[in-house]
């Protein structure tokens, strides 16, 4: 569901840091692309394997993209400022 083609910033990454929020937790990243697992670990998740990182359209908003731990998140794109960590997995009985 992610759309990684809509660029909103074109500055080289050394010119600024990306400020993001995972829930209420603030993070800063110097690089433009970060592994979802690194974002979740920085937010305090010790075992990221069964979690999904969701990008939100606004603080506490709706999910507009999701990332597995091994996915790269491009922080230069639209809707890459607010995130939440959602349990992954599931099944049927």
């Amino acid at each position: 569901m992610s759309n990684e083609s809509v660029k909103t910033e074109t500055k080289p990454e050394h010119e600024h840091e990306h400020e993001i929020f995972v829930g209420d937790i603030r993070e800063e990243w110097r690089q433009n692309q970060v592994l979802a697992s690194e974002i979740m670990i920085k937010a305090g998740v010790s075992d990221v394997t069964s979690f999904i990182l969701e990008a939100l359209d606004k603080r506490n908003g709706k999910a507009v993209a999701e990332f597995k731990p091994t996915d790269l998140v491009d922080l230069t794109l639209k809707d890459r400022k607010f995130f939440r960590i959602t349990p992954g997995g599931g099944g049927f009985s």
Partner: protein
Amino acid sequence: MDESQLPALLQEALQILRAERMDKARVDAIVDNWIYLWLPDVVFEETKYPPPHNRGLWVRIPLQFPFANPHGIITAEPLNPIDGHSIKGHNPNHDICAPVRNLGGNQYYSWTWSGEIGPGPSLRNPRDILGVISWVERRIRQA
């Protein structure tokens, strides 16, 4: 419903849910070690479901939460994806709906925390109730 007899950690989870996500969430039934928790404002993905995109539903939470996992949701109307595909785990008019049938609950989706889709994370904290809500929304989005 009197929630004072619920386990302390579950009461704490409900307080967190109401304070931080859904202030109108309520417990509509307690049956067989499960609560039927009404979530009034669950987000349905606009590209996959027709309006309304905020709907109420019940999620079954164990009394032992957070040391046991949610199991199943109940809706008044069937989930109705725009493309018309059938949704796994759908059990219309299942007995599990009985505790909330008088409130309109009719459609049981027997979704488990872990299974074919993958393992769900261990729950250990009352705050994990917030993750349960986003899990429900994601399951609906991925259904």
